[in-house]
């Protein structure tokens, strides 16, 4: 299971970084979202991976770490708000500059 989780995190982060490096705002937004998922999963895994155990002391023999779940919850909420903001900003950038290029204008198509 460790290998599977590690692979998933790796693929998510790699895809996220790749998309972040593209020149279109939409891919950058998607990239940051995927990067956020990868990071959240990583944070979650840092408490140790356990199957079928609840995060309540006393309710299970070997409880999982509840703190990482709280951290991930916070990170998800913040990440969600930031993504929403970024989408609005990307739309405004598109509206004001008539281009979805991250620099406001496309070097190749400007002419």
């Amino acid at each position, binding site marked *: 299971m460790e290998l599977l989780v590690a692979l998933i995190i790796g693929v998510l982060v790699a895809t996220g970084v790749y998309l972040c490096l593209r020149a279109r705002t939409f891919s950058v937004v998607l990239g*940051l979202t995927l990067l956020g998922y990868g990071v959240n999963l990583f944070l979650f895994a840092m408490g140790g991976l356990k199957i079928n155990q609840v995060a309540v002391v006393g309710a299970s023999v070997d409880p999982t770490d509840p703190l990482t779940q709280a951290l991930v919850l916070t990170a998800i909420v913040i990440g969600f708000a930031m993504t929403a903001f970024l989408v609005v*900003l990307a739309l405004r950038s598109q509206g004001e500059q008539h281009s979805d290029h991250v620099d*406001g204008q496309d070097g190749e198509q400007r002419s």
Partner: protein
Amino acid sequence: MTHWIIAPILIPALAGLLLLLEVRERQRLRRFTGLLSCVALVPVALVLWQQAAQGDVGVYQLGNWQAPFGIVLVLDKLSALMLLLTALLALPALLYGCAGDDRRGANFHALFQFQLMGINGAFLTGDLFNLFVFFEVLLIASYGLALHGRGPERVKAGLHYVVLNLAGSALFLIALGLIYGTTGTLNMADFAVKAQALQGSEQILVTVAVLLLWVVFGLKAALFPLYFWLPATYANATAPVAALFAIMTKVGIYAILRMQALAFSDGPLAGLGADLLWWLALVTLALAAIGALSASRLGGLVAYLVVMSVGTLVAALSVGEPQTVGPALYYLIHSTLICAALFLLCDLLRRSRGDGEDRLESGPPLAHGKWLGAAFFAAAVAVVGLPPLSGFIGKLALLQAVPSAPYWTILLLAGLAGLVGMSRAGSTLFWRVHGEVVDRKLGKRRVIPMLALLLASPALALAAEPLLQLCAGVAGQLADPTIYIRAVLGGAS
């Protein structure tokens, strides 16, 4: 008395919430609420400074949870000093904003308060994850403020700023995950204790995490190679916002200083990444000097001067000796206030020039040119570091404290570049003019806050001796991390 520690976070938070409830059309009420909060922060910061200056570290346990398990706010001399600086900067910046810039967008006042809440929280918190949360609070408010007003340039710079900081947040979370995974704690004091006892692969993982933290703090502080966002963002932000942002880079510097003093002053991880920070800071300083020479707008020039101050400070702090920290803190206070004054002055020049531009080209003459020229001259002398103002004293103390050939060479050359840049900007703006002078009113409500910030420089110079001693006291407390750790963890450590 113990509850005062949380007041610098609660006051702006309550004011921000009230501002969201208030009717948008009632601008005077909103200004009153915002100013009330900023005025209240000054005596609160003074009271807290009084409390911290006695040498005890104040600890506030949120929800009364014991230290390594719950989140704590910690008030030591460094936090109190930074809180006081923030309060003294925020009031003139908001006063300037109340002269009319706050009408250019809907939620200026609320965002301003949330930004203050984030900054104060970051200075107070004793928990790494809580530091992340306060960073996000101050960042999301700063996104809104950076975009305050309109214009395609602002949106473009804002987009870059937001994307970079979101990527930075992701790195921050990875670093926190690693730290929690290996040491099982996120409390700074507890982490400092546990970092001493790490072995083998755990030590390597924590090293990676801490270096990632340096990247994140370096991004906030605008350190090479992560400073490229700053000139565009600051130069395009509205004047009061840019003035408030002068403290934002210092939040990054504060975080580096805090972590270094607490966890990496000795033990197996002593001086972790300090060499790297030293060289990166010197490169930042050199590149900022080149940037200052090549700036085509006054706003851009001032932004590069901010980057220059960051390089100066981080280089001095990465030496890690207590005697360099004191002068660095004095220089930090000076550069924050003067850079903020310069951003406000830059806006005044733009207004009196008539075409609304701060391009460094021959243009229409300035209304009230003599007064503005005198102010610009004083600000330039202060920021570049010529006698008799505070920049000179700050740089002199730093040069004395850091006897290193590369530092002296680069700092002095960068000072020269700043001098050339400011002289060129001043002579272009004030002397290379054509056309008739058009009389424009600048308005007392803009001039007075700018002057207040500018007068900080002679005040800092006059009170240099006691202030340097005070900063040395702050550095002395930082040099002994056991005081902080014992206060937070009690007898448990």
